[in-house]
């Protein structure tokens, strides 16, 4: 027990008070009495004395000299931090109370926040000063160390610096402070290396000498301590007497023991029926008796049926049901599924093999029809479950759709057309065949009078025929395969234009009226050479000599091969086509009376297929592969461009009234253009099976014909009305067949008789046929 100077305590307390001025409010009326030590331990913690026990000044001074004693006071273990939680603090106080200080009862009600504040103060004061005066709840404590009872006789030089790095004291002569606060001086160490070595050599206990860091003194370890160190180094238990390997004794073993584990007699209650249970059971029995508890009903396994549709209210029909597509019923079996079908439904051997080789999905029947002599012989159908399963799959996996089955009578689909009988006249039968050519007849033309027919063929001849008798009147050899012939449409002139290779011949066949022929000759010979000769793309030459006798009148030499030649309606102008994609000289127009040649186009607009004059107005039609261009010759401009909607136009014909054009194409189409309507076809006819070679209008009758590679000529009724509001009526009236197909070519040219409803056709079989 030690008492320390009050003056010092006061000094410290003053400092502390100045730190915590607000603590005054926590002053309680509490008697502060000396705290008596009640516990016996070798560390006597402390004793406290109230400086003045009066009510006015309730400052208590507690002197604690070291940290450890404080710990001891508050029951804090060494490992814990001194920073106390409020709970620990209150526990500590309660321990204080335990020690017999009943008067501190009131502390229990102190607010924790205030406590923690106090604790702060406590902590601050502790660390540097070692001894501090703490004012808690208005009570002053002086913490002072308790004198340690020395267990050994040696002077206790305990260092009080605590657990700090000792190198802090490296530069000082002392190494810390003892319990009395006096410096502990470092032992005088003047040992150098040599001394050390000598010591090591001389001192037999050198190896067990350890320097105490806290005091700097050398300590010689005792035998027990050395032994302990050894044991710890070896990883053994520190206590010598501890046996790690004691024999294990099973508490419970497989041996059946005759004695109970515990010798405790059984409880009495285990022999007496439980009253509580009895009460419970009786309650249940009563409930069962009263019918409150019923035994569990056996579960209904069979479904209960009732009249589900007892109240069929129309409101319950949802909108869904209107959308619902009921599943189609399964197909009903036919005769072939019978166990005893008629013999024709059984499969023959080949059919059976074919059936077996088909994929199951492709088979028309899913089973093989079989015949059994009697019902008893019919086996089970092996795919029965499969079929039911497939039906199930269909029901829930197949999308359903309402398919509008077109239940049309095929007869209703056929358009109602006027009967061909009512549209007569038109050619119906083949009446004459003009034979004589040995090769393809490429082109034919009829004289304006309708008496003569001219045909040009690949055998390099031009033949003149009398239409009514099929007699060949004249055969002219020309220098090449004849590509086109064309009779001058002017009835006052007897002139035929024939094109072969790069030449156009103007012939006077000398048929018919002699006057007419001579007049034609005169007309040609009456030409006078103009004064200034223009250089023209085409050379005009008058044929003389033998040629003249044969009927040749004029020879026009072109720079390129001429394919088609066509006359203007008046008979003075002549247009010819020299198809060549690259040059602008594809079409030339000749004027026979002035022997002049014009090249109307400056630019090439594609491969020209054929050209035609407008029958009345000064228009000029040029058909390229896909378009027909209509030019105004007077204004010299493009008026229209007709789109044929086909791949390759082969031929073209202009209606005698001039408002309609038909185009035949190599892709089997015939396009009818109404120039007043649009530039697109009014109607496209796909009557032929193969490419169209030629189309023609009749001059007077509402007829047009088309010849094709399939060897047929189709005559159609094509009525054009004067009324602009009424569209043309197109009715096919007759399919004329007669030409045989040679080298995949059938009919090459068709043309109508100028006055009669007759049609001529020339074919690849070297014949010309007349249909009347």
């Amino acid at each position, binding site marked *: 027990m030690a008492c320390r100077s009050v003056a010092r305590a006061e000094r410290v307390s003053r400092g502390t008070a100045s730190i915590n001025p607000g603590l005054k409010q926590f002053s309680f009326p509490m008697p502060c009495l000396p705290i008596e030590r009640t516990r016996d331990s070798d560390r006597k913690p402390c004793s406290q004395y109230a400086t003045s026990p009066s009510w006015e000044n309730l400052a208590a001074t507690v002197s604690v000299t070291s940290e450890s004693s404080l710990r001891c006071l508050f029951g804090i273990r060494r490992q814990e931090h001194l920073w106390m939680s409020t709970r620990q603090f209150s526990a500590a106080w309660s321990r204080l109370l335990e020690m017999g200080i009943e008067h501190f009862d009131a502390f229990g009600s102190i607010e924790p926040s205030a406590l923690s504040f106090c604790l702060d103060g406590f902590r601050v004061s502790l660390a540097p000063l070692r001894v501090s005066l703490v004012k808690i709840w208005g009570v002053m404590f002086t913490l002072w160390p308790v004198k340690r009872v020395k267990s050994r006789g040696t002077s206790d030089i305990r260092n009080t610096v605590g657990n700090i790095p000792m190198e802090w004291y490296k530069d000082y002569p002392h190494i810390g402070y003892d319990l009395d606060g006096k410096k502990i001086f470092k032992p005088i160490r003047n040992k150098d290396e040599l001394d050390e070595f000598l010591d090591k050599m001389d001192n037999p206990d050198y190896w067990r000498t350890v320097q105490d860091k806290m005091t700097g003194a050398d300590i010689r370890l005792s035998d027990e301590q050395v032994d302990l160190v050894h044991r710890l180094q070896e990883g053994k238990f520190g206590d010598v007497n501890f046996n790690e390997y004691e024999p294990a004794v099973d508490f419970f073993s497989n041996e059946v023991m005759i004695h109970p584990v515990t010798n405790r007699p059984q409880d009495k209650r285990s022999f007496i029926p439980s009253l509580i249970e009895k009460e419970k059971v009786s309650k249940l029995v009563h409930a069962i008796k009263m019918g409150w508890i019923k035994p569990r009903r056996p579960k209904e396994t069979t*479904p209960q049926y009732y009249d589900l*549709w007892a109240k069929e209210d129309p409101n319950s029909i949802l909108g869904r049901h209107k959308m619902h597509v009921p599943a189609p019923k*399964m197909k009903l079996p036919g005769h072939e599924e*019978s166990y*005893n079908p008629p013999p024709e439904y059984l499969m023959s051997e080949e059919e059976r093999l074919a059936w077996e080789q088909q994929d199951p999905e492709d088979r028309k029947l899913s089973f093989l029809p079989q015949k059994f002599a009697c019902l008893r012989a019919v086996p089970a159908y092996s795919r029965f479950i499969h079929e039911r399963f497939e039906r199930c799959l269909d029901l*829930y996996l*197949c*999308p359903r759709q309402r398919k509008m089955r077109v239940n049309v009578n095929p007869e209703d689909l056929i358009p109602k057309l006027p009967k061909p009988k009512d549209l007569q006249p038109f050619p119906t039968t083949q009446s004459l*065949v003009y034979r004589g050519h040995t090769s393809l007849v490429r082109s034919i033309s009829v004289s304006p009078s309708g008496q003569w027919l001219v045909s040009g063929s690949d055998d390099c001849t031009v033949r003149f025929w009398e239409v009514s008798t099929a007699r060949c009147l004249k055969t002219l050899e020309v220098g090449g395969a004849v590509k086109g012939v064309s009779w001058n449409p002017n009835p006052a002139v007897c002139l035929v234009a024939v094109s072969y290779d790069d030449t156009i011949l103007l012939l006077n066949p000398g048929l018919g009226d002699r006057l007419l022929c001579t007049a034609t000759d005169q007309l040609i010979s009456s030409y006078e050479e103009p004064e200034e000769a223009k250089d023209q793309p085409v050379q005009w030459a008058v044929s003389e000599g033998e040629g003249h006798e044969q009927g040749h009148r004029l020879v026009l030499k072109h720079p390129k091969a001429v394919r088609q030649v066509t006359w203007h309606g008046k008979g003075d102008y002549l247009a010819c086509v020299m198809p060549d994609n690259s040059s602008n000289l594809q079409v030339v127009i000749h004027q026979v009376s002035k022997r002049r040649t014009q090249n109307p186009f400056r630019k090439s607009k594609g491969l020209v297929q054929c050209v035609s004059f407008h029958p009345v107005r000064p228009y000029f039609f040029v058909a390229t592969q896909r378009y027909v261009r209509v030019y105004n010759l007077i204004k010299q401009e493009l008026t229209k461009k007709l789109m044929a909607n086909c791949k390759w136009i082969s031929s073209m014909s202009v209606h005698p009234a001039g408002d309609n054009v038909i185009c035949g194409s190599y892709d089997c189409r015939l396009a009818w253009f109404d120039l007043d309507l649009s530039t697109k076809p009014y109607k496209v006819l796909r009557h032929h099976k193969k490419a169209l070679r030629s189309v023609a209008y009749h001059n007077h009758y509402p007829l047009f014909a088309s010849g094709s590679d399939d060897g047929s000529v189709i005559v159609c009724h094509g009525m054009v009305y004067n009324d602009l509001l009424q569209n043309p009526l197109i009715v096919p009236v007759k399919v004329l067949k007669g030409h045989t197909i040679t080298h995949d070519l059938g009919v090459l040219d068709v043309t109508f008789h100028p006055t009669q409803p007759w049609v001529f056709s020339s074919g690849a079989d070297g014949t010309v046929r007349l249909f009347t």
Partner: protein
Amino acid sequence: MGGLQKKKYESGSATNYITRNKARKKLSLSLADFRRLCILKGIYPHEPKHKKKVNKGSTAPRTFYLLKDIRFLLHEPIVGKFREYKIFVRKLRKAYGKAEWGGVERLKENKPVYKLDHIIKERYPTFIDALRDVDDSLSMCFLFSTFARTGKCHVQTIQLCRRLSVEWMNYIISSRSLRKVFLSIKGIYYQAEVLGQTITWIIPYQFAHDHPTDVDYRVMATFTEFYTTLLGFVNFRLYQTLNLVYPPKLDGQGEISLKSEFEEDYALESESYTEKLSALSASLARMVPSAEEEETELDHFPTEGEDLEKMEVREKMEQEQIKQKKFFEGLKFFLNREVPRESLAFVIRCFGGEVSWDKSLCIGSTYDATDETITHHIVDRPSIDKQYINRYYIQPQWVYDSVNAKILLPVEEYFLGVTLPPHLSPFVEETEGDYVPPEKLKLMALQRGEKPQTEEDEEEEEEEEEEEEEDDDDEEDDQSEEEDEANLAEMEDKRSRGKSLSVKVTPGKAKAENRKRAAEEEKAEEKRLAIMMMKKREKYLYDKIMFGKKRNVREANKLAAKRKAHDDASKEDKKKKKKKC
């Protein structure tokens, strides 16, 4: 011009459809449960018009459902039950794993169950709707009732199916609504007309099934679950309309007559009643015990009795039908043990005949084979030892053929050991241009009341006629045409060659112009020309129709040719035999 830019696939058909997987996720069900739900609710996928649009640009093959359908499924209480069941299974598994047998018991007791009543009401708001859709459920129930009570599905299901199918057959018997029967190689088809609805079902032949491995029995079981519920309610309602007791009970007389010594041997006590019911040999009990007079008439119920009085005024058709309904009445059949008992008993009873069989064959036989009043004894073996003189011994096909023909067919062709006439399908209705087998023609003649000629005469006559006709036609046509053509060709040749024509004027034959033919040709030409003028789309359709027609004609011709070849061959065989004799 302002406004937000429209995003692709956020409106229109893309939003009306939902893929199966998305639908499944939306309902948060496993695929199996989703499948089950679709089956029960009758939801089927839809094929969108523009699949790529709906599929958001992808062309992957997907199944689409209508979004509306899936939304409709969201409100289904059964979905909750499915989830509960899933949890139940999980708990049960856990309990098994922990070997908590008490827990297992408890869980099993509280197994979640669902009822399909509301779904049936919802899918079939009226009774007629349900009746219309009962075909598949019948076929399925009959199939399941033939399954062995092991393996593939629950025993309860099989028992329930059997019960329902027996109920149905009993109803058909008491309402006399069977119309057609067909013995196919797959099974026996029955067609009945119930409340104006034609209902067809198929029953497999009585054999043990060879269960295929590539069939998902879970799907089948789900369907069966639905179908049994539907059929139960339909049966209840049907029994109610006939004033019969449901579940069916044998009427007093029947019950007494069915008592026999063998009862205990035949079946367990619990099952003997259902067995008796399924024997189909006794009539059912009625709710309102009918008057005694009517009770003497078997299977006649008051409603129909009233109708009969009025029926005199009604059309002949209906009378005929009534007659046909009981055209076996007064006949007593006895089934030998090798014939399919259930099917024959069902058919015979449907048309008012009395039927019995050997006591040891099945419960419910009413009289013995020795009964003198038996008129028809149905046997399916080549010969029988002990024959009674006052009854016909016939093969079972006679019953079925008679039912389909609606008259009692002559029994001669169906005697024992005789080659049976072909059994024709009563479901085929020949339209114009279809092939009609000659047996059918004969049958139709019989129905009209014409007396059939004896076979051989008929055949011979037919042959002769046919041959003659064919010959005549062919010769005339061919000759005339050929001659004409030949002449013309010759003439043309000569002309074209320009050779010295034999300028000889022969007396010209007046060309007999066949006016009719000419007119026809003209018409044909007209038609051809008109077809040329058809629009492309119409032409396509027309071609398609004509193609189908032509195919039908071709098939009919093929069948006819085959038949002819077969007949010829058989005739030759006969001739050879005769010669040998």
